């Protein structure tokens, strides 16, 4: 089956005074129509760099993207530009403070010259209504809205061009718990209604578990584990994933290594040789410094990049 979005061998970097940071170091991902791929990892591991390269805010160094099997030119996106839209963490920073709610949602339509003026107005009204912004607020400016309302406007704006794919970069991280639930419910409802595909980035594992069909775990620019949501939740195999899961108090992760992290992410300017996680991995052996582990299939689409995962994959999965 063709995937809605396919990301192949994506490499993306940032030039800094101290050299080039290879923030995305060869990533392959795919998302099916109507499904969510959740992307987790510590801050600085490259999640936003990946998102920005996919949406076209940064030009990748190399790699390919395709939508519904149709390859996309990374530099001149043409018709595909509309198909992928982004929802940001901080709706305040991403919304023009001088435009009203109604103008903010209409702007992308005007830029792309979609629909007649009258049609645009009706469409925008219906869209704002759908995301739960009452008509009385359509003439307000962003600073006159609460954080949750601003995020609803951000979502409406992203949906105005009727995209197929939404990249959501920490969309609820800045919101209070009670408001997070409102926005998460809205996102999953919209997905079902419009058969949208999401790349959903968050550092909050329980949020990712809730919204995702698949989960990918990123470490220093690389995907170290990926699989269906319950596989990753109940049988995490990579030591790093197990360490992350431990912080949520997840006690259903099968019999495998208990990994506690007691150091921080090394500098991405000079990533460790071999397995990038080895400097923090309590299970590292000599091979880990010499050979880069590739993602290996472990059944049900569950893939893990660790030289030693085979040693505990049977006991971990047995419990599930």
């Amino acid at each position, binding site marked *: 089956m063709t995937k809605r979005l396919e990301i192949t061998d994506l490499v993306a970097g940032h030039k800094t005074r101290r050299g080039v940071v290879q923030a995305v170091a060869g990533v392959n991902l795919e998302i099916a129509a109507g499904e969510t791929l959740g992307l987790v990892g510590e801050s600085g591991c490259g999640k936003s760099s990946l998102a920005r390269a996919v949406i076209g805010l940064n030009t990748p160094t190399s790699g390919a993207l395709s939508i519904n099997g149709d390859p996309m030119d990374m530099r001149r996106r043409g018709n595909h530009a509309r198909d992928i839209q982004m929802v940001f963490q901080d709706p305040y920073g991403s919304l023009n403070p001088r435009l009203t709610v109604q103008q903010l949602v209409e702007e992308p339509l005007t830029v792309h010259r979609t629909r007649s003026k009258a049609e645009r107005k009706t469409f925008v009204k219906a869209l704002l209504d759908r995301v739960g912004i009452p008509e009385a607020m359509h003439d307000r400016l962003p600073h006159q809205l609460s954080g949750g309302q601003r995020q609803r406007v951000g979502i409406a704006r992203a949906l105005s061009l009727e995209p197929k794919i939404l990249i959501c970069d920490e969309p609820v991280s800045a919101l209070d718990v009670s408001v997070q*639930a409102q926005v998460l419910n809205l996102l999953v409802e919209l997905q079902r209604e419009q058969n949208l595909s999401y790349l959903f980035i968050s550092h909050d594992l329980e949020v990712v578990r809730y919204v995702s069909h698949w989960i990918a775990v990123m470490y220093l620019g690389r995907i170290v584990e990926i699989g269906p949501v319950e596989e990753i939740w109940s049988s995490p195999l990579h030591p790093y994933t197990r360490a*992350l899961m431990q912080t949520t108090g997840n006690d259903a992760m099968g019999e495998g290594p208990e990994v506690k992290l007691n150091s921080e992410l090394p500098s991405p300017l000079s990533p460790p040789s071999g397995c990038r996680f080895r400097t923090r991995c309590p299970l590292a052996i000599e091979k880990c410094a010499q050979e880069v582990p590739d993602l290996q299939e472990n059944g049900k689409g569950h893939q893990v990049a660790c030289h030693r995962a085979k040693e505990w994959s049977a006991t971990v999965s047995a419990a599930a």
Partner: protein
Amino acid sequence: MQEQEQGAALLDVRKLSVLIKQSSRQKVRAVDAVSFSVGVGETLALVGESGAGKSLTAMAIMRLHKAQSMGVEADSIRLDGQELSTLSDREIRKIRGSTMAMIFQDPLSSLNPVLTVERQLVEAIRLHNDMSAAAARQRALELLDMVRIPAAKSRLGEYSHRLSGGMRQRVMIAMALAGNPKLILADEPTTALDVTISAQILDLLRELQTELGVGMLFITHDLHAVRSIAHRVAVMYSGRIVETGNVEDVFSRPHHPYTEGLLAARPHGSFSLDGHKLREIPGTVPSPADRPAGCAFGPRCNRSQPDCESQPPSLRNETGARTSFACYHPLKEVPA
């Protein structure tokens, strides 16, 4: 000694309010008559969403609130047997950093960027202890070891902005320990950190708390952090404490509709597998100026009745309930 320590209140706060001047005439009660206590060797978590009044509560106890625009009222604030509310600013300054110390969310704003870690620690140590410079330097190193900074010696000459977020927070904790405090007020010390680093800092605080037997007021909006570090919890909503009790009791059998709603709003499980929606709490937290009469949670509450609008419910302990709560129509204990 041990017996005496058990249960003795280290900090006891009665009816603390913080009033913010809006204009020459108008004042709003951002914190409205909160009462709580922290025992020796105990951690009390103050939990609530942003704007609940958690930080102002801590700042008022430390007397670090903005005195030009804010006023503090309290029947009593007792720390280690001493009444703080009647002390002069000068007297409070002596207690601040020694008997009680504070840890903030953003260590960068409270660490001095032009001084090395060693200089700052030594200054803090000598401010509160009669020590030679050499002894203070030795103590600085001990403190860095105590907060589990690897290769502590090599860190002494560093500047705070060169440290990672987690290391900075450790230095901040070392600074707070410099005066051998009996009470630590920690205001969202892990909020700005990654989950992996946050877990390390929580472990450290928990270990230090047991090791040193200090009391801790731990402020957070993170329910996970509460579970992992606190003995008791007080849930704040719009300037008031709405429910309090042992963490286990409050989390497993909440009586206040807000507590229950907050716990249920957190994701648990997978929508793609079972299609369950998260429980929403409609609307948003009111600002102190727009706080409704009666129960502040009323407009968002699914159990509210006309009598909820009459007067704010006060915190009470109903027979049979394990927690204290401020609600006219609390959730009842579910029979086992």
